C-alpha cells in the first residue's frame, strides 16, 4: 500500500497534505516557489457570487504562536475564479477544492452551480464558518439547523462531494457535525479560526480594523485536535483536519485524533515551502513512530473503543 496516498470522496490524494483555504490564494504565488503538483490537493480562497473587497486594513495581527486575520472573504468573484484562476490551476496535476461562501443560502447555491459547471474542481468546501464577515457565514456555522439547510441546498446544486468547514466557536461541535452529515455532507473540514481580538495600546482600540479577527496557528492546535477527536466519534464521514499544523508530528497528531488528511494554513506565510517539506519528511516520521502508511494512523487514538467500522480513507 502506498505510504502517503489517501482516497476521500472526490479526492484521490497522492499525499494527505494540502494548503488551507485563504492561506494560498489561488496558487499563483506559491507556484513560483515549487511545483504545485507535489501537493495532495489545493484548497483555494473563498469564492462569492460577486467580487468582494473585504474589510478595511489592518487585517492581520501577530499573537502568541499565532495570528489574527480579518480579510473578510476578499475575492475576485466566482466568475473570475472560474474564468482565470481555475484554468491556471488546472495546468497542474493536483485536485482543487473550491471554498464556497456567501451571505444567503441562494449565494451558496449560485456559487456552487458555477463551480460545478466549470468542471474544474474536484470537491467543494462549504465555508459556513468565516467569523470575519458581518452578515451570513458565521450564523450558518453556529446553528445546526441553518447548517443543515445550507448543506442540503448546496448538495442539491452539485454532483461534487461537499466538505463542510466547521467553526470552532460553538458550544457543541458534534451537533454541528451531525447536522451537516444528516444533510448529506460528504466530509468535514475543521477547524476554521477561533474569534479573537488584540488591542493596540497606542490607539487604545482593537488593532484589527474589523475589531475581531480569526485566530489561527499553533495556538489553536489543541482546540482543533480536541474537536476532531470529538467529531470522529460522532459521525462517519471523513475529516480534513487543520489548525496550527507546522510539523510532520503535528500531522500525525491530527490523524490519530481522526483526520484523514490535513491542511496547512498560516504556516505557509512563515515558510512558503512548508507543504512540500512536510510531504517529503512525512514517510520518515511515520516510520520513526512505527507506522508504515498514513492509513494506519487515521483515528488511531480511538482504536480501543472505536465501534465505527467505516474506513475513512
Amino acid at each position, binding site marked *: 500500500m502506498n505510504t502517503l496516498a489517501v482516497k476521500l470522496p472526490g479526492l484521490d490524494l497522492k499525499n494527505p497534505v494540502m494548503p488551507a483555504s485563504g492561506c494560498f490564494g489561488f496558487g499563483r*504565488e506559491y507556484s*513560483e516557489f515549487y511545483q504545485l503538483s507535489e501537493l495532495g490537493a489545493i484548497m483555494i*480562497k473563498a469564492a462569492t457570487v460577486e467580487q468582494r473587497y473585504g474589510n478595511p486594513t489592518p*487585517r*492581520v495581527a*501577530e499573537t502568541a504562536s499565532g495570528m489574527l486575520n480579518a*480579510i473578510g472573504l476578499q*475575492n475576485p468573484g466566482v466568475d473570475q475564479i472560474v474564468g482565470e484562476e481555475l484554468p491556471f490551476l488546472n495546468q497542474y496535476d493536483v485536485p482543487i477544492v473550491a471554498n464556497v461562501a456567501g451571505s444567503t443560502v441562494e449565494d451558496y447555491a449560485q456559487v456552487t452551480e458555477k463551480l460545478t459547471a466549470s468542471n474544474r474542481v474536484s470537491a467543494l468546501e462549504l465555508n459556513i464558518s468565516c467569523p470575519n464577515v458581518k452578515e451570513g457565514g458565521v450564523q450558518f456555522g453556529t446553528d445546526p439547523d441553518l447548517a443543515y439547510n445550507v448543506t442540503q441546498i448546496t448538495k442539491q446544486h452539485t454532483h461534487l462531494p461537499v466538505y463542510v468547514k466547521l467553526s470552532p466557536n460553538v458550544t457543541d461541535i458534534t451537533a454541528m457535525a451531525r447536522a451537516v452529515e444528516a444533510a448529506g455532507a460528504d466530509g468535514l473540514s475543521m477547524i476554521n479560526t477561533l474569534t479573537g481580538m488584540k488591542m493596540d495600546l497606542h490607539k487604545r482600540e482593537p488593532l484589527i480594523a474589523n475589531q475581531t479577527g480569526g485566530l489561527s496557528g499553533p495556538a489553536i492546535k489543541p482546540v482543533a485536535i480536541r474537536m476532531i477527536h470529538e467529531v470522529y466519534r460522532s459521525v462517519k464521514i471523513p475529516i480534513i483536519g487543520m489548525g496550527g499544523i507546522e510539523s510532520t508530528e503535528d500531522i500525525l497528531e491530527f490523524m490519530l485524533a481522526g483526520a484523514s488528511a490535513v491542511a496547512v494554513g498560516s504556516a505557509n*506565510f512563515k515558510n512558503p515551502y512548508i507543504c512540500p517539506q512536510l510531504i517529503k519528511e512525512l514517510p520518515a516520521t511515520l516510520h520513526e513512530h512505527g507506522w508504515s502508511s498514513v492509513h494506519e494512523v487515521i483515528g488511531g487514538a480511538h482504536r480501543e473503543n472505536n465501534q465505527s467500522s467505516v474506513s475513512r480513507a
Partner: protein
Amino acid sequence: MMKQELMTIMEHSTVAKDTYMLVIQGESVAPPIDPGQFVHVLVSRDFFLRRPLSIADVNFANGTLTLLYKELGKGTQALSLKQVGETLDVLGPGGQGFPVESLNIEKALLVGGGIGVPPLYYLAKQLTDKGVAVESVLGFQTKEDVFYEEHFRALGEVRVMTNDGSRGDKGFVTDGLPEGEEAFDMYFSCGPAVMLKAVSDQLASYPGYISIEERMGCGIGACFACVVPADSGKGYKKICRDGPVFRPEEVIL
C-alpha cells in the same frame, strides 16, 4: 525571483536613536533588484509573522543587501540583538519597486519620512547612476532620529526637516518641498500614510511614485492582508505584490 534564504549578517550597527543598519549576505542578491522592493524577515522562531523591511542598498559584487530599520516593537527589538555571523531567514526580494530603467527625466525629488527614508537611498543611487539629478527632503521627529543625511548629501541636495527643529528646518516634509516651476520632473516618496497623502496632494501637478506600508501576512500576494483600495474604491491593489510602490492616482490613501 523571490527566494527564501538563510542570509548571513555581515554588519550590524546603530545609525541613529533606535535605528540600525543591517548588512546581510546571500544568494538571493542577484539582479534585478529594484529600489522600493522589500524583504520579508523572520526574526526568530519566537515570532509567527515575518516583518517587511525595505532594501536600502544592494551590492551585487559582495552579494549583500543593506537594511535600515527602527526598533518599534518586539520584532525589531529582537532583530536589533542579532549578532554579526548569525543567520536571518529572509524571503525576498518582493514587490514592485520604483521604475528606474524606464524613466526619462532629468531632475528627481525624493521625499522620505522616518523609516520611509531607507528605500529612497538605493533609489537615489540608481537615479544618479543614470544621470538623473536628485534632490531629497528627509523628515524626522528630532535630531536623534536623523540617519543617512550625509549619504544622501553625497548624491545631491538634501533638506532635513525635524518636527521640533532640532536639526535642519522645523516642520514636516511638506513644509520643505521645493517651490517654483520646473523645480523637478518627478517625485518619489515613502513614509507614513498621512505624509504620503499630504505630499501627493501638494505635488498633485507632478508625476510621482509613492511607497505604501501595511501590515502583512504572507508578503507574496496570497493572503489579501495588505490591500489598498484602488479604482475609485471598487478595486484593490496588493501592497506586497502590486506595490509597495504605486502612482498616487492608482490607489486611494
